[in-house]
């Protein structure tokens, strides 16, 4: 397997969709190719960073304005 073939498999590998033979072949390549290993690791990290919204906080006032708008709508509808 060359680097181009390895990169083509990046999504399948990260999503766990490769068959065992292909996965093993890819892992052999990754163990011997620092460049591709770095690309795989940092692509995985990319997805992790975007998924990790735990520390994200809503800016001040956004939540209050949303709930005020919803309550106004609800009250108008209940009349």
């Amino acid at each position: 397997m060359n680097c181009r073939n390895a990169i083509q498999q990046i999504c399948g590998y990260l999503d766990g969709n490769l068959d065992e033979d292909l996965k093993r072949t890819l892992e052999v390549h990754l163990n011997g190719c620092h460049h591709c290993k770095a690309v795989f690791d940092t692509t995985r990290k990319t997805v992790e960073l975007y998924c990790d919204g735990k520390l994200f906080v809503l800016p001040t006032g956004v939540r209050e304005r949303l709930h005020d708008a919803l309550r106004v709508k609800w009250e108008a509808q209940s009349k």
Partner: protein
Amino acid sequence: MANSRDAGLVKDESVLVTEAKAGSYEAFEDLVNRYEKKIYRLGLNLTGNPEDAEDMLQETFLKAFEHLPTFREDSRFYTWIVRIAINQGLMKLRKRRSSKEVQLDEPSNDDGDIMPREFADWRPNPEQELERTELEAILQDAARSLPMTFRTVFFLRDVEGLSTEETAELLNLSEGAVKARLFRARLRLREELSKTLKIKKDS
């Protein structure tokens, strides 16, 4: 009407939907509380603009409130909300930018080489080393650099956890097109983030 906060239990989403449909504002507000942060962050990443993100957030939940009686519950409530949010977000972008950029079904004009240019390792834990706001700004800048069609697929699939099939249906794309865009989106975001997060040779 039962109070969803009684006994400190986290209510099942479908129970809240049923109660909200029956007229419980509190149940609806519980659903909003669960997802407001995620929808705002999605808006920020899609539009790249805090004002648009807040508009998108409000319009999404106001629309959801309005259309709740017609929600058929054949998908998760959150998937339904994301669908509304995406449509609101796309409308915002169409108003702001040329329509070409937000055509999601356009054939990808990014058929260039996908081979990476950055091969350096990253700092091991950027989320611990950087200030939260600094990291968020880096992530948003990188997202903004992506064509809308790639960005939307990436956030729906990888961040919101929609399936390839759901994403394809929502964006009116083939499943093959979703997979191809996801592949390119991941690699391009990685490339962008590498500029900031890579270990510099002289450090």
